[in-house]
């Protein structure tokens, strides 16, 4: 009893001490402090700039503009010189005598220097950056890509700690986790399915993206519900001054973007869309007997209205669709012993996302702001198969099978943000209603039909607190707490998720960081995770499929030279996961009947990941780029798999290396190259075989020719490496006229056959007389997916002034 009392006293004391310190820090505000606030925007379009740095050159105090371009800065005295910086823009110096509570609307102009490709979105200042990554969109668009189409998700796999799953797919693995453990947000709303073309291309149109941030470790407390990574994508608002546009054609896609002011200076509009040429191509080669259709598009629309400097409304809409269908008509032939006049077969698959969000941000004072979002997101996959036979005797047979899976979230997130000198405090809530339809199946054969439906709902309440404290010039501390109550039909799960980050500046350009976090994920995913397969089935956590959990600690060192040209960072992390799911070893046939999904999964697995990430980056100059290396070991353990022993995660990439080079040859020519190397993924291969036998014990046959698969993921496939090259030629006929880009991308320049899967092949053997002697010794064949693929794309801007 005394011990318990002492513990309670100790906890209370620690809490009081912590709060006391917060207020001491706040209370040290001197009366001669001048608080200014405002927004930082791009001069050309008047769009807010996220992540711009505004620094008081006298006191060295600084602030970073948030997602609305908003900042608050405390100055030492009335007179000060403020320096405002952001990549791609001219730095601005404002020296003036500022008044208490003064609003500053700063507009940055684009840089007129020889175009440089800056490869970092961060400056030396700012919030703790351990476990965070980003790239400027301009870099993303210059790097060579498959089919010449800039792809956010594939490009970020060139950064340390982020790996690719299967070649050519959009599956992103962050710090040894699986793709379902990443939360992908577009303008604050989650997006579930990330793939077009069966997973070869991600659904994000880079023309419409303003900025993205990847969190590999500790996230802001306002976000949660996944274990591995957060990819926070912000789309552009649209130009508030002029109507502009951009059109691009590449071998795979055509895309356009139109933006402009609906009311100059107040309301802007942006519409961007992509669609594939493949549909046209398929139509061209379709005939009367064989018809193949394909439609793919994605669409981003956004309206931004600035009621005044302190009130803004954003309406975002995103939609993506892939719809493929093949129909075949065969005349004549027979089925069994029936003579057939005609048969018709059709098969089709369709999947897509719909996301809509309405955001409202208001700045109540130089210290308080309120932000809220209402969002809806839905992912749906459907497929069908239809067959009809007409026989000579007048009989007809017909069958129709259709299945659909979907999940949707409807949520509201609102928080208040308080900023004052060294403290930034976020306090808010998120309420989400979720609905899962893992599979609905309709089957009809002649006149009989069956309909199977599965439906599950969940309601999640989240409350969060996030506190950033700047402890003098030497350190930053962030503490976050998220409380979750996830209610399902059969149970309610509670989770208290702390997040902690400490960043300490050690000296000239050196920073050391430490972070720790815990989180839960209340959903599971069934997917093959392979190219060509977009059928993702999301399942809500239940009492029998409990939530996944993760704990992570990470520490890092970072050095950035005084002129912010070179960066070296080293991070180490350790993660433990529990409540994981894995596909049972059912072979390929098993996935055909996903209606009984509980029977396909193993639950309550454990995971452990250790890793080390190294990044060497040159950020400025005509020659920029980076080298990224990740060493990691990711393992899983399930009681029912591998005799309960730990085994490698399928995508346990022990070594992952990327070299990225961007070189500005002249104002018109830019060259880029990427080389990536990864340890091969893991597959399960038999360790032995029970030979083929013709044994029959009396009348009972013993089937041999059986492979012994007693170790899960026991083989590492040959390593993956690839070189891609890119050349971009930019020209402008008139100085103020439209600009043109012609890009050549060469994917897999030295035609490396990287393993997609393996198979064994044997050939029949015959003697001289043609007598069959059996099959030859099987040989292992590696099947690759993408050979050397060059592609050319062309972009042009439009300007309606």
């Amino acid at each position, binding site marked *: 009893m005394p011990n318990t009392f002492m513990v309670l006293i100790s906890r209370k004391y620690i809490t009081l001490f912590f709060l006391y310190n917060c207020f001491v820090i706040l209370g040290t505000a001197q009366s001669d402090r001048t608080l200014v606030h405002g927004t930082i925007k791009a001069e050309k379009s008047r769009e807010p700039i996220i992540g711009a740095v505004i620094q008081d050159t006298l006191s060295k105090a600084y602030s970073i503009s948030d997602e609305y371009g908003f900042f608050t800065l405390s100055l030492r005295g009335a007179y000060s010189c403020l320096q405002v910086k952001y990549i791609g823009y001219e730095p601005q110096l404002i020296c003036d005598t500022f008044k208490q509570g003064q609003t500053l609307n700063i507009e940055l102009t684009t840089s007129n220097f020889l175009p440089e490709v800056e490869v970092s979105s961060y400056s030396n200042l700012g919030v703790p950056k351990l476990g965070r990554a980003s790239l400027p969109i301009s870099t993303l668009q210059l790097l060579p890509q498959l089919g010449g189409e800039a792809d956010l998700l594939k490009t970020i796999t060139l950064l340390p700690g982020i790996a690719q799953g299967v070649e050519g797919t959009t599956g992103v693995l962050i710090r040894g986790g699986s793709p379902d453990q990443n939360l992908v947000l577009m303008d604050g709303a989650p997006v579930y399915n990330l793939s077009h073309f069966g997973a070869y291309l991600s659904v994000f149109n880079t023309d419409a993206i303003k900025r993205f941030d990847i969190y590999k470790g500790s996230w802001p407390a306002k976000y949660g519900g996944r274990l591995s990574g957060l990819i926070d994508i912000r789309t552009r608002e649209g130009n508030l001054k002029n109507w502009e546009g951009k059109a691009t054609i590449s071998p795979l896609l055509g895309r356009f973007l139109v933006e402009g002011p609906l009311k100059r200076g107040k309301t802007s509009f942006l519409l961007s869309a992509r669609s594939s040429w493949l549909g046209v191509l398929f139509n061209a080669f379709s005939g009367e007997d064989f018809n193949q259709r394909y439609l793919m598009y994605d669409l981003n629309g956004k309206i931004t209205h600035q009621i005044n400097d302190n009130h803004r409304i954003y309406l975002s809409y995103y939609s993506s669709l892939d719809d493929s269908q093949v129909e075949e008509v065969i005349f004549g032939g027979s089925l069994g012993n029936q003579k057939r006049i005609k048969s018709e077969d059709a098969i089709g698959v369709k999947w897509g996302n719909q996301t809509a969000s309405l955001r409202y941000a208001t700045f109540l004072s130089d210290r308080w702001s309120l932000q809220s979002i209402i969002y809806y997101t839905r992912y749906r996959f459907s497929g069908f198969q239809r067959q009809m036979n007409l026989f000579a005797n007048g009989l007809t047979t017909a069958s129709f099978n259709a299945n659909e899976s979907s999940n949707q979230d409807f949520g509201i997130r609102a928080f208040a943000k308080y900023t004052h000198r060294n403290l930034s405090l976020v306090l808010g809530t998120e309420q989400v209603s979720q609905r899962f339809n893992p599979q609905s199946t309709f089957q009809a054969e002649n006149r009989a039909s069956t309909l199977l439906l599965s439906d599950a709902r969940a309601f999640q309440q989240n409350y969060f607190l996030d506190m950033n404290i700047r402890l003098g010039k030497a350190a930053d501390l962030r503490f976050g707490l998220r409380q979750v109550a996830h209610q399902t039909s059969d149970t309610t799960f509670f989770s208290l998720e702390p997040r902690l980050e400490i960043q300490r500046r050690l000296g000239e350009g050196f920073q050391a960081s430490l972070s720790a976090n815990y989180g839960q994920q209340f959903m599971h995913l069934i997917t*093959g995770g392979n190219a060509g397969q977009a059928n993702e089935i999301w399942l809500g956590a239940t009492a029998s499929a409990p939530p996944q959990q993760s704990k992570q600690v990470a520490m890092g060192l970072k050095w950035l030279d005084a002129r912010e040209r070179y960066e070296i960072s080293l991070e180490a992390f350790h993660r433990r996961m529990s409540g994981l799911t894995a596909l049972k070893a059912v072979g*390929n046939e098993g996935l055909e009947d996903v209606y009984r999904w509980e029977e396909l999964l193993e639950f309550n697995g454990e995971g452990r990941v250790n890793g080390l990430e190294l990044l060497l980056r040159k950020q400025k100059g005509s020659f920029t780029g980076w080298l990224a290396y990740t060493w990691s070991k990711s393992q899983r353990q399930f009681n029912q798999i591998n005799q309960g022993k730990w085994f490698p995660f399928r995508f346990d990439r022990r070594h992952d290396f990327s070299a990225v080079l961007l070189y500005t040859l002249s104002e018109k020519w830019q060259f880029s190259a990427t080389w990536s190397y990864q340890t091969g993924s893991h597959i399960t291969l038999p360790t032995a*075989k*029970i030979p083929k036998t013709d044994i029959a014990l009396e009348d009972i046959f*013993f089937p041999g020719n*059986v492979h012994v698969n007693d170790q899960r993921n026991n*083989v590492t496939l040959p390593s993956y490496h690839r070189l891609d090259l890119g050349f971009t030629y930019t020209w402008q006929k008139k100085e103020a006229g439209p600009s043109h880009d012609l890009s050549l991308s060469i994917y897999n320049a030295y035609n490396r056959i990287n393993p997609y899967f393996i198979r064994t092949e044997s050939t029949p053997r015959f003697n001289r007389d043609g007598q069959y002697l059996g099959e030859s010794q099987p040989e*292992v064949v590696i099947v690759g997916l993408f050979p050397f693929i060059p592609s050319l794309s062309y972009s042009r801007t439009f300007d309606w002034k």
Partner: protein
Amino acid sequence: MKLKTILLAGLLILLTACELTRTYDEGIFPEAPPVLVCFARVENERPISAYLFPTVHALDTSSVNFVSDATVELYKDGQLLEELQFENERYVSAPTTVGVPGSQYQLMVRHNDYPNLVSESVLLPPPVEVFDYSINFSDSASQYSIDLSFSHTGLDAASYGVLADLYADGQLARDRVRTAISAADPFVKGDTVQFNLILPAQVTRFEDFIPVDTLHVDSAAVSIQSISDQYYEYFASRPNGEIGGFFPPQDDLFTNFEGGYGVLFTVSAERFGVKF
């Protein structure tokens, strides 16, 4: 028009000619030392028998190589009963040693080149009890239909096998006419299994594919076998033979031997005669 066609064809080739392959001869398959596989049967009406052979490399296509120089010991209720002898590719017990219902059997195999193989103890259950049967004759189909009911031992319905040796004038006309119970539920009602055995009323004998004689069946020896679950568990746990595919192959191959693989299973048979 020509340019358009060339462009379209070029695009199509570019987008569809993506798969490419290469052979890989760097020993990607794991090497594991061979272990013994045993396939053994204990039955109440026959001597105990066991096949023994080693596992091979996953890509080995050679035929089975039976082991003849192992020591195979049969234990009954924990006591050594006898050492099985190699005979015609398999190890068998003495002709007089048959399974005794209600006893536990175990096999132990020793060999200089392989790890020892020890089976779990399996119980030979008593055979089914035949409750009743009735015979119907269909003239048009020229066949007998025997409606059987017998005791249910608790096994899956598919574990029962019903066989009949057909006789004509005291001579064996055809042996092991077999019908397996394939559908599970309809045939099991509480403690009773109901089964319909269809037998031909006539048997035609062939010599060199030419019919030489037609025998009229006048009696049959019906055997009802109940095969233990171990056999079916092995059968169901076999992976489908795929190698290197996207999904993990089935990896829970059933065995009730330690130190290797294989199945020791039991067959309880009940025989009775039928006169037509």
